[in-house]
């Protein structure tokens, strides 16, 4: 599904922060990416969602070299993936419901379909009573669940998460991981960057380890 071949990354003329990265994520797999702060986890994720371009190497997604994708093709590929950020990145001027509805609006679904799907999903993440709440009025855990709902509303084939539990308490973190687990059981490929070894060990899924720009394969 996702393949990195000898990928390297440097910002500007600086030193390479990612070196010779090789990844081969199989469809339906669940993988963690562990590493200390500053190891380059976020940069690696940015490469996965085409926010930055590698300095060298080849990245393929769904059997296509992404450097060969046209600007018009890229949105369709992005709709096949969901991304969750540590800082949630909710649109502050939109309600929880409208934040979650965004990917569906972009995809051009009808309002009635959007309303049904969004309500169902917010119900699934336990926020059925906060549909119209603005992000600023939600707790950290609630915001993270809204961000989670927004990332999965499109039923993506591939879900990326960057420190999804970094800003929430352990109880909320476990609940979120349970949601990831449920989604994985439905066939979604999941890749989570975290620095929490405890959670990684608890779930027991394969774990890549990134340190000093070098990626170590799961054992």
């Amino acid at each position: 599904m996702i393949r990195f071949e000898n990928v390297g990354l440097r910002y500007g003329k600086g030193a390479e922060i990612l070196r010779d990265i090789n990844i081969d994520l199989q469809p339906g797999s669940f993988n963690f990416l562990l590493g200390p702060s500053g190891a380059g986890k976020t940069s690696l994720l940015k490469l996965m969602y085409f926010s930055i371009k590698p300095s060298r190497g080849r990245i393929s997604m769904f059997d296509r070299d992404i450097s060969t994708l046209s600007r018009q093709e890229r949105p369709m590929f992005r709709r096949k993936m969901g991304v969750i950020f540590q800082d949630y990145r909710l649109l502050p001027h939109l309600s929880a419901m409208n934040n979650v509805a965004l990917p569906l609006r972009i995809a051009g679904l009808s309002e009635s379909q959007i309303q049904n799907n969004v309500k169902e999903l917010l119900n699934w993440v336990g926020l059925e009573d906060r549909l119209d709440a603005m992000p600023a009025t939600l707790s950290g855990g609630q915001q993270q669940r809204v961000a989670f709902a927004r990332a999965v509303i499109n039923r993506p084939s591939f879900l990326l998460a960057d420190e999804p539990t970094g800003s929430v308490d352990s109880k909320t973190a476990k609940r979120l991981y349970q949601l990831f687990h449920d989604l994985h059981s439905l066939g979604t490929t999941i890749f989570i960057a975290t620095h929490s070894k405890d959670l990684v060990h608890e779930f027991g899924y394969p774990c890549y380890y990134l340190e000093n720009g070098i990626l170590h394969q799961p054992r």
Partner: protein
Amino acid sequence: MQEDASKTIDLLPFDYSGQVRLLPWIMAAMMYLGALSLAAFFATHSALQSWHQDVRGTVIIQVMVNAENDTEKRVKKIVETLTQTQFVTEFTVVEEEDSIKLLEPWFGGKELVGDLPIPKLIDVKYEGDKAGLQPLFDRINEIPDVLITDHQPWLEDLAVFARTVQAIAFWSFLVIMGVGGLTVILSTRAGLSINQDIISMLYLMGAEDEYISKQVEGYTLRHSLTGGVSGVLTAVMTILFLDYFSPQVNDFFLPTLQLNFYHWIVLAVLPFVGLAIAIFTARLSILYRLISEDPYR
């Protein structure tokens, strides 16, 4: 209720961005100045046409008063000559009362100019080329103390001045429209910079350039139209106000701000032309920005 509300949401909250909130006001000011420049252009154009119409095919024959020659006899002789000339369509011997009235603005009323030797004036209208009248002018010039005045030469000088004013008015209009377009570009760029994080998120969710562009265009459309219509309406009120007061200060040579039907139509269309320019520049600006920031371009 929820459905209606969700359809009208602004994904890019330009309205909350202080830097771009001024757009409707700037558009209103630009359209106001643009409409006035255009009105000045039209008014000068109308005045030029009117001047040409008034003096084209017209000469004035002045019969000077002197003690040696009887004025009435010379006038009679000229009238006979004019009557026999083929190209002369109409002529009028101006009454002394009317001649004094013409002089009033410069020399005062009858009591002041009554003693002056006021020449007898004959207003002659002709058709065809002025060169065809040369034999007539030659015969009249044989009569002593007669002067044939043609307005065309000095009118040409005035016309050059008027055309310069007209060109300045049109150039001002183009500059104002250009500045309006530039304002939209700067406003769009400011809006994009402020909303950069949101745009990144929209991209991440699979938004296409067209989708993001439409969000900005929607904002530009609403505010440019509001600003444009307000600006042109204010300009129309200004034109009507100036037109209402212009007869009191007007002179024959000064162009009035009276516009004809087609001029009003052009002014009515102006906000929509401004809107089209605004949408076009906003679209170009956002597409350029989005493409230039694409790491895979």
